[in-house]
């Protein structure tokens, strides 16, 4: 049978920037707040977290580069919101890796259940 190739090269491209963005717990927390409470400014986000507004702005910039948040101007405020498309791409990539394990487990089952 044709062996299943490793997930490294199959399926959608690996979302490097998303993975890097998600590697930081503070950034995951910011995403969580934005997802749960809706769009907010860097100042509002900083009020609810034990970090400075500057630090929040830096994290938001990383999230923005990774395509996980968008920003829009409302008067003098810049409001940030979760970009669901970015989350979907990363979720799809992970789902692809999980599907590969399903294929491998099915192959293990076939071999194990076949008499030697």
């Amino acid at each position: 049978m044709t062996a299943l190739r490793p997930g490294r090269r199959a399926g959608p491209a690996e979302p490097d920037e998303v993975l890097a963005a998600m590697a930081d717990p503070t950034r995951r927390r910011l995403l969580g707040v934005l997802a749960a409470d809706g769009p907010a400014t860097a100042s509002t986000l900083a009020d609810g977290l034990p970090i400075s507004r500057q630090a929040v702005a830096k994290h938001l910039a990383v999230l923005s580069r990774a395509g996980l948040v968008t920003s829009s101007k409302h008067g003098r405020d810049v409001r940030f919101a979760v970009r669901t498309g970015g989350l979907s791409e990363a979720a799809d990539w992970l789902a692809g890796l999980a599907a590969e394990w399903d294929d491998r487990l099915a192959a293990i089952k076939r071999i194990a259940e076949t008499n030697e």
Partner: protein
Amino acid sequence: MSQDLIEREILIEASRERVWAVLTQAKHVAGWFGDSAEIDLRPGGKAAFGWTQYGTHRAVIERVDEPNLLSYRWARDTDVEPAEGASTLVEFTLTEVFAGTLLRVVETGFASLHATPAEQDKALQDNTEGWTSELAELKEYAERSAA
């Protein structure tokens, strides 16, 4: 520890010993993982999974507890050492059930692949839930609030 993970399982109608053999014997492994396999089955032992078309992914065995548990760290890229930050950890657990064997696989370590060393340290001290599940939850949340 930050548990960025993929977790899957399957019920196999065969004994744990049989499933263990399929997981660990090179002749069987080549049937479900790559085209060729070499495995030195002991903690710290080296393994290599070769794909004719893509090259060889090196691995190092972490835990061997026959026929209960097997884990190894495998390099993400071909022909490189499975070092921390360049590899993910795969852990198989075999549980005896009425109909045979429940085989579970968990792959972790995707977060540290692209993290800075400082972030990796932070991730180790981090007690939050797995971020792969967070990702799905975030997506759901965001879609609900957008609707």
